[in-house]
């Protein structure tokens, strides 16, 4: 016969195990922090070109087709990891725009030369002002904008190939409709 007090630990443990199971089994992604921009028009883009001889970012850059706006920096170590994914996205017909956050033209040029350049245009956000408009938490972050210029999705952190194929591809398909 079980004593009431002796049952207490088991009861507590059962509750905890239940909570752990719930935490584990629900789709769990701590990286999803809501962005106030989702479902709203993207902030106006007005940034000088980061690379000599190429164009900067203008509001027109966001019209026509699906655009990914990637906020990166040459001093950002994890950004290196997402370059192949961005390249793949470019191959798949997504216009990839870059915003270089608190960076210098020399470093960006060197960095893109070393790690590849998936961007059709790169704007330089020297003081980090544009990043404030976009609500950037840190680099890298990527925003997905549909043909109407509405922000549909925000990805925080480096975009892995897995993120892209598992989550973003279906989303992009949907945005194309």
């Amino acid at each position, binding site marked *: *016969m*079980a*004593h009431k007090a*002796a*049952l207490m*630990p*088991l009861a507590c*443990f*059962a509750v*905890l*195990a239940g*909570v*752990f*199971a*719930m*935490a*584990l*089994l*629900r789709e*769990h992604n*701590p990286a999803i*922090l809501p962005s106030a921009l989702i479902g709203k028009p993207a902030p106006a883009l007005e940034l000088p070109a980061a690379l000599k001889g190429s164009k900067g970012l203008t509001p027109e850059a966001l019209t026509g087709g699906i655009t990914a706006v990637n906020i990166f920096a040459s*001093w950002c*170590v994890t950004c*290196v*990891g997402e370059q192949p994914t961005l390249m793949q996205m470019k191959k798949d017909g997504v216009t990839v725009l870059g915003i270089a956050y608190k*960076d*210098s033209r*020399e*470093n960006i040029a060197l960095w893109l030369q070393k790690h590849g350049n998936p961007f059709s245009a790169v704007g330089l956000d020297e003081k980090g002002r544009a990043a404030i408009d976009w609500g950037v938490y840190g680099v890298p972050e990527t925003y997905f904008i549909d043909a109407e210029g509405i922000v549909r999705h925000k990805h925080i952190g480096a975009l892995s190939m897995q993120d892209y194929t598992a989550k973003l591809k279906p989303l992009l398909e949907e945005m194309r409709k």
Partner: protein
Amino acid sequence: MIIELGHFALVFALLLSLAMAAVPLFGAHRERESWMRLAKPAAISISGLVTISFFSLIHAYALSDFSVRMVVENSHTMKPVIYKIAAVWGNHEGSMLLWALILALWTTRLVRQKEIPLPLQARALGVAGLLQAGFLSFILFASSPFQRLEPPAKEGLDLNPVLQDVLLAIHPPVLYMGYVGFSIAFCLAAAALIEKKADSNWAGILRPYAMTAWIFLTCGIGLGSFWAYYELGWGGFWFWDPVENASLLPWLAGTALLHSVAVLEKRGSLRGWTVFLAILAFSLSLTGTFLVRSGVLTSVHAFASDPLRGVFILALLGAMTGGALLLYAFRAPYLKIAGGFRPVSRESALLLNNVFLFTVLATVFTGTVYPVILSALDLGTVTVGPPYYTLCLTPLLVPFALLMGAGPNLAWREAQLAPVLKKLILPFVAAAGLALLPGFLRSEFQPVATALIFAASYIGAATLQELFTKTNRFRHFRLPASFYGMVLAHLGFAVMLAGATASTAWKSEETLWMKPQQILAFADYDITLRGIQAGLGKNYDFDRAQLTVATEGLAVGTLAPEKRWYPGAQRATSETGLLRDGLGIVYATLGDADAKDPLRRVLRFYFHPFILLLPLGVTLIALGGAVALLRRKRGEHGA
């Protein structure tokens, strides 16, 4: 070929574990001696097989066999040999195998246990067999380190350079010795519940296991904290990170267990509670592993998150802890035997100690799992930070300290309070004076620091006073080893608490841009940046700042913080520059260069006074445990 041999050995070990679980447990139930005796050879064979399996992995890593998937993912030919071998347990799969190996080795220690009744031993080994079967099936079915790669890779993907560190290489084995060591206490507790019997003899068998595990855990936590201090470059030694808490929780439960098992061994009381703590210590080790491995809690340390593994570990946790607690619910009432003691006695003091430790444990546990609970119930994402712990733990520590000073003075069974209180006036006054001193010197009053310094000095003073009286003013030292162990551990706790408080409350911090030859006046020092040099290390290139530190014109030493780039892993790390001055440490990290002027660099400095008291305190605590383990000799009797 050798890898397949290792894989096969592990499969065989799993089958043997199942046999070790079933046959002796059933044999003990039916009182068949020959069945019970089977546990010993089974345990020894399992440890042999798991060792073979582990060495097959070491072999693959040492020779950089890139046809093995884990080797490709975690090693590199350019890596120094010691890190190639450490890479075996630097990842999820390998560290689970290390866990199984350590469990197997601990189990063989139980096989050699003297003066243990055969049924108790057979049952404990049987439960160990159940645990081992659980871990081995987790390795084989959900995280096999033996997978081959077809075709083999040409080169490995390196180990995270942050993890390329001697301290970190030895940290997991030490920590696991602690975690897994508690499994033996767990097995003995389960066996006691099956037998409905937990007496002084049982406590005497359990205590050395719990103590040894606790010593390893103490060292493991200390090493981890020291590693975080100099490697992460954040200028702190404890971040209340979930992974750190995961190692602290079983330590707290283990500390409580060591105090309650002493009561059971000497006086025969607190039986059910001691059994419960033995179950708790290991369950918390498991929970910690679960929280880290499953990705339920994200943290800087999380290096493997896989939902399937999480489900598997949760099932293991449910079966092991749930099973033991179920047994506890039905059998603990039988353990109750009237072993009465008065409200004022050593027993009460130790019980009160358990209440405090348990409250601290509950506080840390709540802070750790609260974010998980919130996110499970869709109530948002939060993190619980240091302010919560400071706020909750400081008020607990002061009464805890008062008790810690008084407890060892009380006699077993029934004690007189008045003389003890009278005796403690001296340490109390001394500690109060010491605690108020920094306030006078600096003409600023920090309430939290004052309270904690008071707690630390009071524990220190009361413990020394107790040593003084018990040894009859240092005239005779023939006291039980456990007394000296207690003195060392309590002094260690006081020293550690003082170090943690002083280095946090009176630290200095400065971040700035510096150019060569620039001089910074920082804390009591003048720090000069002599220059920045670039160079090539073993498998990385680096920038190194040369700094000289002087105080009042006299040179103290140099600091050389580095920024490293590992091309193999495409990662940058920063190496802290440390300079010891007395008990304090001057700490420097090198940051980025100015884009326009590469000679201008960001530098960050910390000065942590008295921080060396921390490792000193932790060492004393661990040493106290080791001393308490020494066998009683020459007719000494228990304290």
